[in-house]
């Protein structure tokens, strides 16, 4: 009699031994154990007899030849008919195996998700957004001194000048308005193009609202004409600018 561990190990393999599913080494191990262990041998004999009983006892049914012949004929006829049937029915059979349907639906969903993601990235990178990466790249790629890539005003440049008579700042006379106008400061930024026009002007302010005076000022600056900034060689270039405007209320003296 071998030890209990060996018996447990051998009994795990008894069915595979019985069914001829063991490799040579395992087969030899089990066989040697069964030669020595009456308990395991009895267990094995029980399964072997059961197997013999099942093989002998499970009826091998008499095959109804005529019925099978009719079935064969029916299957072949139906198969041939199916092969000729319409596309619609063929498509419905495409759903017979749902694994392919799930795989196809998954692929479609993944492709759609990728396409939407790509579209979102392209939209975010659009040059129409001034703060986008694409816009920054476009600015850097533009020639230095062009409107898209202006100089900052510095001592190397001949500064731009207002063309005489072109800038008309709105003047407000208190007497003409029904309310007192407080003194204000406005700041605008933009680009002065090489042909002396103002481009991309916008108001710099922290508040959310723009009062009518600011709009009037912005319009006046935009419509003004300038002598452009120039390099030392006289070539006109674009420069960026910040325009600060202060309203000053001038009150008449007492003598008036």
């Amino acid at each position: 009699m071998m030890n209990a561990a060996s018996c447990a190990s051998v009994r795990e393999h008894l069915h595979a031994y019985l069914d001829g599913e063991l490799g040579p080494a395992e087969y030899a191990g089990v066989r040697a154990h069964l030669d020595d262990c009456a308990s395991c041998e009895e267990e094995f004999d029980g399964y072997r007899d059961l197997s013999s009983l099942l093989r002998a006892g499970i009826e091998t049914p008499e095959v109804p030849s005529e019925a099978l012949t009719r079935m064969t004929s029916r299957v072949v006829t139906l198969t041939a008919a199916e092969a000729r049937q319409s596309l619609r029915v063929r498509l419905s059979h495409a759903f017979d195996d749902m694994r392919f349907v799930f795989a196809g639906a998954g692929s479609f969903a993944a492709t759609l998700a990728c396409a939407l993601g790509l579209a979102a990235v392209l939209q975010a990178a659009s040059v129409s957004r001034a703060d986008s990466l694409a816009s920054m790249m476009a600015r850097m790629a533009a020639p230095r001194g062009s409107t898209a890539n202006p100089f900052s005003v510095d001592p190397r440049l001949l500064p731009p000048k207002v063309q005489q008579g072109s800038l008309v700042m709105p003047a407000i006379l208190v007497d003409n308005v029904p309310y007192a106008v407080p003194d204000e400061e406005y700041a605008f930024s933009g680009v002065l193009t090489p042909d002396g026009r103002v481009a991309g002007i916008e108001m710099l302010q922290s508040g959310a609202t723009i009062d009518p005076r600011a709009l009037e000022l912005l319009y006046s600056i935009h419509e003004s004409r300038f002598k452009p900034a120039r390099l030392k060689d006289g070539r006109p270039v674009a420069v960026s600018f910040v325009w600060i405007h202060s309203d000053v209320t001038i009150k008449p003296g007492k003598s008036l």
Partner: protein
Amino acid sequence: MAEETVVMKPVRALTWSDVAGDELSLVQRCADGDEAACTELVSTHQRMVYQLSLHLLGDHNEALDLSQEVFLRVFRTIRSFRGQSALRTWIYRIVINQASNRQRWWRRRRRAQQVSFEQHVEAHGELPGMRRLDSPDVVLGQKELAGRIQAALDTLPFDQRTVVVLREVDGLSYDEIAFSLNVAVGTVKSRLARAREQLRAELRQS
């Protein structure tokens, strides 16, 4: 000991050569819609399909109906056969899938007509020699034996009954059974062990 009845597992691997030649040619012709090839395929495998269906479902008409369904399914999906197994094993797999779907409601329908193992013994009396299956002088009438074994088989869950039939009746290897059931070989081993254990207990009763 029974050395003469026990064999070692033959060392072999399934290759294209196992399913090459006539079988692949037959499959290809069937896929192309050759009616003679379809007839040949059905004729070659119909006996096996019918018998397995009958063992799994236990009813002649159901087995015939299932056999027809199986072959229709075979021809609808034959283009997906890539020689990943022998054609016979691939057809086994289809039989088991279809039978598994069908037996769910069929089992419910049959349950009312089935007699339990105990009822069967009561009706037919205790059979001689069944107390010890390992007794060498077990002699049973074939019909009684078949009835008793069928009653014991009916007590098994479908998965376990299928493994027993595939192994004991059709003589499939563990690998073939695993492919037919679409499970791992380890699962086949455990199902077979549980099934035999239960069958032995059932047949030892009374």
